[in-house]
C-alpha cells in the first residue's frame, strides 16, 4: 500500500475548550470532548516528531489561543524545527500574540473563521461581539506579516450573504483568497441540524452563488468540501458521463479521503486518532506508544487505508446508481456519524440523493471548465518516463546510487517485461507522453532492447539513453539513431583505463566504452560524456575533456557522487570530494576550463553555485531544471516510482504496471500530489531560503528524501556548503 514513511503532518487539538460555543461546532458533544494534556507532555511529543522527521503540525481545538500556555507550545514546536499552522476563531488574537507568531518564522498559516460580511450574519451562531473581534484578530495577523487565511462556513443564516462576504474579504481587506465549507454532521451541528444545516434549496442557492463568485474571482475562492466543492465535483461527473468516459480517476471505490496515507491527529488528551473527526478511533497515546509504530502497524489505521479497495457496487445503496463509477464515496468521518460505519459511503455528499431531493446543479460556465481542463493538462501532463530497464548491470561501479546486481554472461537478473513496457507506453501516450529515457542498471543489455527501440521509433517518441557504452554495438547505435530526437550519454570516469576501471569495477570496460562512443559517433551522434568526479579522478578532468574532443563528443557533464547506496560508502570512506573541493572545482570548470574547449561543459552542482552568466548568458550552458512535475519512473520489476530511487526507498514506489492503471498512479499518488502542491514553497533548510529554489526545486527530491526522510528536506550539498560558509550569500533571501 502506498503511504509515506512517516506522517507528513499531525493535526493537534491542543485543547477541547473554547471561548465560543458556535451552534455548528464539530467538536462539542463528540467523543473528542476530553481533558487537556499539560504542556510538558506536548513538548515531549514534539521531540518525538523531530526525531521522526515530521515537520508540520496544525494546531486546532477547541480554540488554541484559549490555552494561556499556547505560545509556549508553539515555541516548543518551533524550536524543534517544526513548521505549524493554526485554526482559530480569531477573537483572542492580540497584538502581542500576532507579533510572537510572526517572530517564530515557522508559521505557514493562521486560518480565521469569518462567516459574515456584517455582525448579524457572522454572529448568528457564534455569539454577540464576535464579528469585530474576529476581524480585528485577522487584521492584527496581517499587520504583523503572519500568513493569515479565512474559512467561511456556510449555513442557513449566511447563505444569502456570500457575495458580500467575498467583497469584504477579497476587495476591502484584500486577502489573496478564502476557502469555504458548510455546516456538517459533526459535534454540536448534529444536535442543531434543523437550525444550521442548509436545505437542498439553500444548498443549490449556495452553489449558484459560489460558482458565480468563482467565475469572478477565480482561484481566490476554493473549497475541499461543502457546496462549492460539490458543485465542481458533481459537474465533472456529469461531464465525464457526457464524454462517454466509463469512470473518473479513483471513481467506483471508497477513495474519498487520502488523509490516512498522509497524516495523523492527536486529541486534546493525547490519544492518537486518524482524524479529529474520527475521535472514537483510538490508535494509541502520545509519549507512550511509538508514533511510527502506530503509523505503520496500527491494524485499525491500515484497515482505514484499505477502504480505497472497497468497491461502491458492494453497497446496495450505490449499486444501481448511474454515478457509481464516478463517485468516491465521500468522507469516512461523515459516514461514521451518519451511518455509524466509516467503511461505507457517506450519504451526505451523495449526488443522486441531492438530485432526488430536488437539488439543482448550476451550469458551470465554460471558462471554469476550460480552466480546470487546462490546469489538469499543465500540472499533470506526463511528459517523460524514465525506464530503469534492468535490475542487473554489466559493470559494478563504486559510486552507483541505484546499486543493481552485477550481471555477467553466466548470471542474469530480471529486466522489464516487454509486454509491460508496451502497455505502459499505450497508457502514457494518452496522458501526453512525448519522450522516454532508457537507463538502468544498463539499458543496452536488456534482452529485447531491439524490440524496445523499434517500439519507440514506431511511436515517434523522443529518446534519451544513459549507458556505460560497453554493449553499444554499431548496429545498436544505428537503431538508436533511427529514433526521433535521440540523444545518448556515455559514462567515462577517467581518461585512461586505470582510473576508469577503478571506478567501474570491471577490467576491459574502458576500451569497450571507447568503442561504444566511436560506434555512436559513426552513427551520426555527438554523444555526451558523463564523468562522476571523485578524489581518484579529479586530476583527470582536463584530460577527459581532451579525450571527449578527440572522440567527437558534443558535451561533457561532471556529476557529483551522490551519498546514496554505493555512493554513500564513497562518502564514508573519504573517496568523494568535500563540498569545499567541489565548489572550487565547479567554479574552475565553469569559468576557466569551459573557455578552453568548443564542447559544452556542465558541472552538475545546484543552480545557487553556478554563475548567472553561465545559467542565462549567451555563452552559457543553460539552466537545467529537474522535470519532476512531468516525469515518472518505471523500475525493472515493473513498479512505478518517483525515479530509480524506488529501488532503495520503497515509499517512493507508487504501484505496479501489472495491476495499477497508470492514470490512477499519475493523478492520485499522494507523494506526487504532495510534490505538486508543495514544491518549491515547502522546501526547508537552506533550500527554503534560496533565491534559486523556483529554478532548482531542491536539486534532487529523491536524494533529499532518502537523506532527510522528508520530501522537503534540503539538498545535502547546499546544507554542507552553508555550514562551511561556502553557500553564496547573494543567493539567499535571509
Amino acid at each position, binding site marked *: 500500500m502506498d503511504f509515506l514513511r512517516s506522517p507528513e503532518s499531525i493535526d493537534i487539538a491542543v485543547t477541547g475548550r473554547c471561548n465560543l460555543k458556535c451552534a455548528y461546532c464539530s467538536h462539542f458533544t463528540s467523543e473528542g470532548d476530553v481533558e487537556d494534556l499539560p504542556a510538558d507532555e506536548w513538548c515531549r511529543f514534539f521531540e518525538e516528531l523531530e526525531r521522526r522527521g515530521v515537520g508540520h503540525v496544525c494546531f486546532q481545538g477547541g480554540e488554541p489561543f484559549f490555552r494561556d500556555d499556547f505560545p509556549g507550545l508553539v515555541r516548543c514546536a518551533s524550536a524543534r524545527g517544526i513548521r505549524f499552522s493554526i485554526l482559530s476563531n480569531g477573537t483572542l488574537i492580540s497584538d502581542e500574540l500576532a507579533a510572537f507568531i510572526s517572530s517564530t518564522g515557522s508559521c505557514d498559516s493562521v486560518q480565521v473563521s469569518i462567516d459574515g460580511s456584517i455582525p448579524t450574519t457572522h454572529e448568528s451562531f457564534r455569539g454577540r461581539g464576535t464579528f469585530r473581534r474576529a476581524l480585528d484578530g485577522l487584521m492584527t495577523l496581517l499587520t504583523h506579516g503572519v500568513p493569515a487565511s479565512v474559512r467561511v462556513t456556510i449555513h442557513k443564516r449566511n447563505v444569502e450573504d456570500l457575495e458580500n462576504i467575498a467583497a469584504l474579504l477579497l476587495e476591502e481587506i484584500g486577502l489573496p483568497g478564502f476557502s469555504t465549507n458548510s455546516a456538517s454532521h459533526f459535534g454540536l451541528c448534529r444536535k442543531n441540524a434543523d437550525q444550521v444545516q442548509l436545505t437542498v434549496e439553500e444548498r443549490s442557492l449556495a452553489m449558484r452563488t459560489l460558482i458565480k463568485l468563482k467565475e469572478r474571482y477565480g482561484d481566490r475562492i476554493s473549497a475541499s468540501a461543502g457546496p462549492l466543492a460539490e458543485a465542481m465535483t458533481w459537474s465533472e461527473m456529469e461531464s465525464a458521463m457526457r464524454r462517454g468516459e466509463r469512470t473518473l480517476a479513483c471513481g467506483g471505490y471508497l477513495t474519498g479521503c487520502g488523509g490516512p496515507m498522509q497524516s495523523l491527529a492527536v486529541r486534546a488528551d493525547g490519544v492518537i486518532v486518524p482524524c479529529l473527526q474520527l475521535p472514537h478511533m483510538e490508535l494509541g497515546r502520545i509519549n507512550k506508544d511509538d508514533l511510527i509504530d502506530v503509523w505503520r502497524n496500527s491494524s485499525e489505521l491500515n484497515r482505514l487505508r484499505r477502504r480505497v479497495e472497497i468497491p461502491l457496487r458492494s453497497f446496495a445503496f450505490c449499486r444501481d446508481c448511474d454515478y457509481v463509477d464516478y463517485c468516491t464515496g465521500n468522507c469516512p468521518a461523515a459516514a461514521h456519524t451518519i451511518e455509524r460505519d466509516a467503511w461505507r459511503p457517506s450519504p451526505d455528499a451523495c449526488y443522486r440523493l441531492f438530485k432526488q431531493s430536488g437539488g439543482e446543479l448550476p451550469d458551470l460556465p465554460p471558462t471554469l471548465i476550460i480552466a480546470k481542463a487546462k490546469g489538469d493538462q499543465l500540472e499533470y501532463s506526463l511528459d517523460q518516463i524514465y525506464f530503469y530497464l534492468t535490475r542487473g548491470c554489466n559493470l559494478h561501479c563504486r559510486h552507483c546510487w541505484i546499486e543493481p546486481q552485477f550481471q555477467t554472461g553466466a548470471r542474469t537478473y530480471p529486466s522489464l517485461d516487454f509486454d509491460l513496457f508496451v502497455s505502459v507506453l499505450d497508457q502514457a501516450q494518452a496522458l501526453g507522453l512525448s519522450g522516454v529515457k532508457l537507463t538502468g542498471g544498463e539499458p543496452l543489455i536488456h534482452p529485447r532492447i531491439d524490440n524496445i527501440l523499434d517500439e519507440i521509433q514506431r511511436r515517434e517518441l523522443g529518446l534519451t539513453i544513459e549507458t556505460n557504452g560497453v554493449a553499444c554495438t554499431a548496429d545498436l547505435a544505428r537503431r538508436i539513431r533511427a529514433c526521433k530526437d535521440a540523444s545518448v550519454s556515455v559514462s567515462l570516469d577517467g581518461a585512461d583505463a586505470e582510473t576508469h576501471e577503478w571506478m567501474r569495477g570491471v577490467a576491459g570496460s574502458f576500451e569497450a566504452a571507447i568503442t561504444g562512443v566511436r560506434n555512436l559517433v559513426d552513427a551520426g551522434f555527438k554523444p555526451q560524456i558523463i564523468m562522476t568526479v571523485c578524489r581518484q579522478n579529479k586530476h583527470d578532468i582536463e584530460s577527459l575533456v581532451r579525450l571527449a574532443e578527440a572522440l567527437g563528443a558534443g558535451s561533457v557533464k561532471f556529476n557529483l557522487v551522490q551519498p546514496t547506496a554505493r555512493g554513500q560508502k564513497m562518502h564514508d570512506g573519504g573517496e568523494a570530494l568535500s563540498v569545499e573541493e567541489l565548489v572550487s572545482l565547479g567554479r574552475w570548470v565553469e569559468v576557466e576550463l569551459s573557455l578552453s574547449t568548443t564542447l559544452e561543459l556542465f558541472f552538475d552542482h545546484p543552480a545557487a553555485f553556478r554563475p548567472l552568466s553561465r545559467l*542565462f548568458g549567451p555563452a552559457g550552458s543553460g539552466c537545467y531544471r529537474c522535470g519532476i512535475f512531468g516525469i515518472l519512473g518505471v523500475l525493472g520489476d515493473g513498479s512505478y516510482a518517483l525515479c530509480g530511487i524506488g529501488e532503495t526507498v520503497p515509499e517512493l514506489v507508487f504501484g505496479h504496471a501489472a495491476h495499477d492503471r497508470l492514470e490512477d498512479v499519475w493523478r492520485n499518488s499522494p507523494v506526487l500530489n504532495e510534490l505538486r502542491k508543495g514544491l518549491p514553497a515547502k522546501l526547508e533548510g537552506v533550500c527554503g531560503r534560496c*533565491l534559486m529554489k523556483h529554478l532548482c526545486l531542491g536539486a534532487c527530491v529523491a536524494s533529499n528524501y532518502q537523506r532527510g526522510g522528508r520530501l522537503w528536506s534540503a539538498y545535502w550539498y547546499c546544507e554542507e556548503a552553508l555550514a562551511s560558509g561556502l553557500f553564496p550569500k547573494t543567493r539567499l533571501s535571509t
Partner: protein
Amino acid sequence: MSHRGKPIVNPQVILREEFDDWAILFDPVSCMGYGLNPVGVFIWKRLDGRHSEEEILLDLKSHCENVPGDAGIHLVEFIDDLVRRGLAGYEVTLT
C-alpha cells in the same frame, strides 16, 4: 524614446553584485530575486532620479561597444519591467 521623467530605484531593493559582473536584485518584501546581466547592472546604477532615460542611453553608448540601434527601445522595456515588478519607479512632485 518618450520623456517620462527620471526613473529611480525602489530604495528597499538591494543590488547584490557577483564576481562575473552579473548581479541579483533582491526584493526583501517579496523575498524574490531577479538576475541582471552587466548591462542591466550598468542601467540600474543610473536609476537615481537624476538621470533621464535619454541620458542613460547616451551614457551606455559611451561606455559600451557595439551598442545596437534599437538599444533605446530595450532600455525603455527594461525600465518598464522594473517598474511593473515594483523594483523601480519615477519621482513624483506633490502639488
